[in-house]
């Protein structure tokens, strides 16, 4: 079973909440769900849509087909009619629009009139549409009503019940007049306890699970949701969110908090990260742990602010003046977003380095069904000296940047008796004070860079998938994972022999693991969401291996299996 709903309408019509409830309803019935959003940089008007793909197998990518189009306005029909499958239907409000009702694919349900009659509020037309849609696929109404009650419960019983009434009205209306030709049947496949969660929420939960106590940020799409979610948990989890006056303040607050001994994170997008770059270098120099979420969107400059791209890989790896160790992760799924966020905090503290989590609009905004195992989250804070250990060094004998074989110096919480924690953005001596000594400079550069050796042992290798004997390897990174995986399945089902690798732990680049993963291949095609092939470039720089081909997308839309397959066939001439 592979079924695609698409809900479309103007900003402000409730497209997002409707798509979200639809996704939750299907997940509760045991389906795997992937719900992606497409919205414009505006609060009202324009065209927004929410595509909900439903399967009885793990759905991991966006489809370009639509089986049931739920049109909250006429424009949605015009824009998406071409995506409709032959047997697909368009659900619309004929009393509102002026569509030619003769078209067989159209199912006319007066969303707004039914909403007004049932609830006294026209605005609930979207919930009427939802009820009608679920009736068309013969879904269980009880599941929908339970989801509506849970989702709207926080807004009070009355709001929840009115939504249930509105959904019922749509459900019953179609019950009386749905077309017999529409054969899809999405009966619930069994109760499920899986979450419906997007990448942004997964990062915020990962941070909370890791014991992050302080987040500072300046709102910027696509990372705003991370800040808001964390802020919303302040009272329940005794954590602090501070909205900074700009991204420079945000990263510096994070460094201050981290220096003082708590785990801290900031989240932004490319523009905000650009402002943070000088302070990224400060984190490197002062060896202050920090986790920075860089939610990629379309650049340069303001670009397409609400759309997706993978254009900041090389920026993340190279940003900052001077040379210092760092870690770059690019999670591919919501599960990875959760676990890698937790791992980011561990590496940041164990090695006292900044860690950049490269997400993107697509991963951040797309909902998927997932399970997180909290018992798998470990908190490794690195070396801290106890009061006794500090005393053993003599009064104020502690040295923040002490030279050690690993390059990692033990930490002390500022305020601990008998120790002074001194650090400097200038080159500094072991005790953290400013110096101009050439000898100390050499020692300190080597000390900091030595931490890369330890970090290399912590970095996981690429994920591999597909038949081992395949001589063609398709390589991707980050959130392109799901689309490429489905493309590989479909290509192999169609007679090709291809395999794939996906990199999510990217820096320090796992050279050996990468070479092992592509062993035996003769063709390497890199698939990524940018215009110049940044991963292909990185692979060449790190391994000397030159990609034989590139499949790139940079129109602001996510890579899809169909897009990859078409380009691949052009690429290999198949």
């Amino acid at each position: 079973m592979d079924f695609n709903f698409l809900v479309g309408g103007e900003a402000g019509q409730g497209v997002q909440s409707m798509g979200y409830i639809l996704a939750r309803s299907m997940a509760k019935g045991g389906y795997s769900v992937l719900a992606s959003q497409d919205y414009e940089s505006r609060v009202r008007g324009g065209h927004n849509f929410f595509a909900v793909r439903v399967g009885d197998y793990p759905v991991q990518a966006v489809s370009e087909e639509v089986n049931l189009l739920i049109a909250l306005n006429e424009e949605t029909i015009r824009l998406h009619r071409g995506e409709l499958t032959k047997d697909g239907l368009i659900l619309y409000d004929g009393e509102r629009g002026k569509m030619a009702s003769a078209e067989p694919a159209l199912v006319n349900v007066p969303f707004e009139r039914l909403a007004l009659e049932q609830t006294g509020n026209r605005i609930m037309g979207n919930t009427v549409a939802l009820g009608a849609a679920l009736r068309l696929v013969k879904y269980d109404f009880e599941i929908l009503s339970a989801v509506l009650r849970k989702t709207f419960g926080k807004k009070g019983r009355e709001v929840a019940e009115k939504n249930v009434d509105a959904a019922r009205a749509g459900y019953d209306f179609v019950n009386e007049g749905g077309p017999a030709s529409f054969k899809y049947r999405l009966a619930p496949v069994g109760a499920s306890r899986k979450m419906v969660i997007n990448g942004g929420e997964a990062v915020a939960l990962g941070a909370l699970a890791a014991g992050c106590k302080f987040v500072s940020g300046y709102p910027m799409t696509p990372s705003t949701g991370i800040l808001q979610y964390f802020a919303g948990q302040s009272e329940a989890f005794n954590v602090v969110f501070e909205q900074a006056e700009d991204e420079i303040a945000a990263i510096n607050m994070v460094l201050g908090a981290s220096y003082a001994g708590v785990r801290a994170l900031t989240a932004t997008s490319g523009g905000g990260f650009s402002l943070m770059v000088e302070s990224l270098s400060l984190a490197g120099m002062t060896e202050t742990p920090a986790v920075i979420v860089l939610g990629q969107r379309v650049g340069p400059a303001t670009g397409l602010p609400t759309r997706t791209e993978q254009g900041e890989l090389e920026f993340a790896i190279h940003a900052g003046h001077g040379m210092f160790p760092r870690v770059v992760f690019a999670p591919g799924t919501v599960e990875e977003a959760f676990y890698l966020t937790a791992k980011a905090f561990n590496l940041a503290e164990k090695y006292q380095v900044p860690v950049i989590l490269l997400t993107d609009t697509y991963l951040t905004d797309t909902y998927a069904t997932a399970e997180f195992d909290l018992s798998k989250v470990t908190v490794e804070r690195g070396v801290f000296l106890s009061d006794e250990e500090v005393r053993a060094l003599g009064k104020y004998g502690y040295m923040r940047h002490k030279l050690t074989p690993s390059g990692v110096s033990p930490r002390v919480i500022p305020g601990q008796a008998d120790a002074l924690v001194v650090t400097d953005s200038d080159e500094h001596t072991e005790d953290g004070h400013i110096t101009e000594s050439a000898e100390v400079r050499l020692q300190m550069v080597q000390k900091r860079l030595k931490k890369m050796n330890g970090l290399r042992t912590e970095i996981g290798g690429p994920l591999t998938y597909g038949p081992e004997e395949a001589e063609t390897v398709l390589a991707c990174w980050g959130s392109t994972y799901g689309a490429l995986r489905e493309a590989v399945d479909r290509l192999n089902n169609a007679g090709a022999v291809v395999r794939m690798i996906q990199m999510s732990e990217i820096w320090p680049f796992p050279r050996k693991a990468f070479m092992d993963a592509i062993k035996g291949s003769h063709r390497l095609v890199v698939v990524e969401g940018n215009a110049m092939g940044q991963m292909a470039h990185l692979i060449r720089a790190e391994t000397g291996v030159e990609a034989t081909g590139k499949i790139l997308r940079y129109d602001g839309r996510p890579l899809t299996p169909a897009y990859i397959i078409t380009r691949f066939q052009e690429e290999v001439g198949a």
Partner: protein
Amino acid sequence: MVTLKDYEGGETAWCPGCGNFQILLAMKRALVELALEPHQVLFVSGIGQSSKLPHYLKGNLFNGLHGRSLPVATGAKIANHALTVLVVGGDGDGYAEGGNHFVHAIRRNLDMTYIVHNNQIYGLTKGQASPTSERCFVTKTTPGGVILQPLNPIALAITLGATFVARGFSAWTPHLTQLIVEGIQHRGFALIDVLQPCVSFNHLNTYAWYKDRVYDLGDEEDYDPEDQLVAFQKAQEWGDRIPIGVIYRSERRIYEEQITALKAGPLVTQGHNPLDLEELLEDFIP
């Protein structure tokens, strides 16, 4: 008992005769008077000759980037509000590069003390105009004289509702010591703008120039530093007479008191268990 000896620090890199020496001395004396031990104090500084000050005494120190000391101090204070936080910088660091942070740090009103060495010139980069340079002042970057209106940090802070706004003069070291003591004791964000001659690059606002002009507001019996309008008026006084002392003082709830998470003690002392998230995950299950 804490003595000046406890605060003895490294060798300085300042010019002989620099006002920074007097500020350094006042700072040490204030900390001794408050019986604070060096490990209880966190200094945060940026870049400039003034920002080197914490290297020349004892204490915890985060010497960060130009203009960014206030956000670092904010993060550190939120993480551990048991620390006494002193932020040290100059007029370029605080009023130019860090101007945005200065404005918002006042709004936040965390309990910290911000000491700005204001010499109306850039010293570290050897003689360019600063935001507080007077009009017509000839510097290396303003060969025809400064044409911009000087920034008035005192008036700006009062307008923003800062809860402790003071001006000191480096050569009046005992007076400055008392201002620093009061600033640290004040619950909230305390600004102490310190007039400080630059013997190398500012030949206009010299020791003699200041000595002829400054007077202690503390001697004015009828001056009420709690009246915002009066204080704002006083902040405009500059020229033949320059007031020093506490210019404005008010009470406003500090940031730390309004954050639920901090009621259980400093964040840095609070524990954590990943399994506490179990309930949160439930929200995502439809």
